[in-house]
């Protein structure tokens, strides 16, 4: 199998489903495993949806592992008003015949990372509970991660609260662990997440396609048009996967990041230090320890992202 080896951590989720379709069909990517975390919907629903959407993509050979049921500290809240009761916008997919593997998601990832001499890429599209638990139990894996792509956080406005984005707010302690781990991270923030969109006509055209993946993708996007009552539907998490396919189409900035854990109004906020500093006179190692290892996606070429999504899901 050619392509870049990646693991996806998901809380499927309408847009996680779109991301899974994109990742599973893109020739540039080799999905070695998918781990499930509770988030948009409870863990067993996430598992079911993940198995079923991989089946749609003819990718049932990809191992799926069940992960953390609850955030590290708080009770979970879910996002059924966005993703529907079943987490897939009310769409019924044919049931996949596959099941999850025996191992817990965290054990699975630790084992896989240990097994290979190459570094791995992990794409985390839900709350960071699995990733944080992995890092805490198996700290050695950190040095084997080439890149961690995360959908999470917000520079400007949040979504679930005025300053916090859903994934980080769902498990702020987990996010804190991950951002303090010094793993090279690409952060696909809420500010860009909403930008890659299709209108109703384009969605209808997708649904009408002969290609099963494209048609299902269209139906998933249609569910967004209905529940969110907007004129356009965004591909959400799939954009984070697209960053791996067309890195030239994004603009990034390295910024120190902290996760607020105890603020009354700001729990779950990603606090970015945007203040300019003259670091050029410092040694690179010290510059890096001040700036951190989080590269934030500040902007993207919307047309390129729309095209890469539509072009790859039919492959």
């Amino acid at each position, binding site marked *: 199998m050619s392509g870049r080896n990646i693991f996806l951590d998901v809380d499927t989720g309408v847009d996680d489903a779109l991301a899974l379709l994109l990742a599973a069909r893109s020739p540039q990517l080799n999905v070695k495993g998918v781990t499930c975390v509770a988030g948009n919907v409870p863990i067993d629903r996430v598992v079911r949806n993940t198995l079923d959407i991989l089946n749609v993509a003819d990718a049932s050979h990809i191992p799926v592992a069940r992960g953390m049921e609850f955030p590290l500290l708080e009770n979970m809240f879910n996002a059924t008003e966005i993703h529907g009761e079943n987490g897939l916008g009310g769409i019924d997919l044919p049931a996949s015949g596959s099941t999850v593997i025996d191992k817990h998601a965290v054990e699975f990832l630790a084992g896989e990372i240990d097994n290979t001499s190459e570094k791995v890429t992990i794409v985390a599209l839900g709350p960071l509970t699995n990733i944080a638990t992995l890092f805490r139990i198996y700290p050695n894996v950190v040095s084997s991660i080439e890149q961690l792509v995360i959908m999470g956080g917000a520079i400007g406005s949040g979504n679930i609260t005025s300053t916090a984005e859903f994934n980080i707010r769902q498990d702020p302690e987990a996010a804190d662990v991950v951002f303090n781990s010094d793993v090279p991270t690409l952060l696909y923030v809420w500010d860009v997440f909403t930008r890659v969109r299709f209108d109703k006509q384009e969605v209808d055209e997708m649904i009408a396609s002969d290609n099963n993946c494209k048609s299902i993708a269209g139906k998933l996007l249609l569910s967004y048009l209905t529940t969110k009552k907007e004129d356009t539907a965004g591909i959400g998490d799939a954009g984070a996967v697209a960053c791996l396919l067309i890195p030239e189409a994004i603009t990034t900035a390295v910024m120190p990041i902290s996760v607020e854990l105890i*603020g009354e109004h*700001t729990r779950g906020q990603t606090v970015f230090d945007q203040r300019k500093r003259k670091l050029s006179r410092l040694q690179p190692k010290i510059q890096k320890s001040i700036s951190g290892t989080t590269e934030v996606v500040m902007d993207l070429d919307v047309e390129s992202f729309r095209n890469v999504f539509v072009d790859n899901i039919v492959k």
Partner: protein
Amino acid sequence: MTSVIIDCDPGHDDALAILLAAKHLDVLGITTVSGNESIDNVTSNALKIVEFGNLTDIPVIRGAEGPLFRDAVYASHVHGKSGMDGAEIPEPTTKLQEGHAVDFIIDTAMSTSDLVLLPMGPLTNIALALRKEPKLRDRIKLMSIMGGSSTSGNYTAAAEFNIYVDAEAADIVFRSEIPILMSGLNLTRQVLAKQEHIDEIREINNSTAQVVADLLTFYLGTSTRHSHDGAAMHDPCAVAAMIDPTMIEFEPMHVVVETTGTHTYGMTLCDVRPGSVKSKPANMEVAVTIDSDRFFKLLIDTLRMY
């Protein structure tokens, strides 16, 4: 003319704000609060300003020595050790008006209709006044505040200095239900004084303008050293909002102050989510854009009047 009290912690930009206000608004008094520098320093600076501006009719009243609960932090890295470095200004001979700033604010509000407050330092005095006299809420028409930000901070990544210094006081003020215009960093960063502005002020043939040019030179120096593109005219924006409201665009927003966060203490959370059902109703007007050229024209034309 609108009757105002200026509550401040001079401060280079406070100085400019006072000079701007004095020629367009009815300034009933200047109250000082610990902020940019200690209460002694900022009060001395306020007296210096009324002297070099020939504004000694305006009473200056000393206020709170520090925040409600926390230790004071200062901004001498921006304003210098005196809090207003950069110009040769003689020690003031003008006397302070007796009494505490908090009582001056209360007494003036109870006896003046349509009073507007212009707070441009930490909100300690205002919070104390509101707590001491509950009737104050109905006596103050409006507050045009310099503080906070709808985007990022300066003293910390998330918080602007005035609110950070005394977030508990800010929280009291923001929940008071008095109409508020908030000129935060997201606005004031759009108004940067540069060398060409200083040169133009230098050309003005009066002693007040010359002192301003000296002060701005110092302030531009520290701003540049902190990687800013100019010297931000924070406090004068809150004044400009009262002199010419058409110069600034405001948006109604729901704003709360964070008082318990580790990284977000002192942050003003302005809910800008589009039409979200989770948003609470707007509780103040937040300034979002300003016509910078019009602002500098107003400022420089006003300095010519001295």
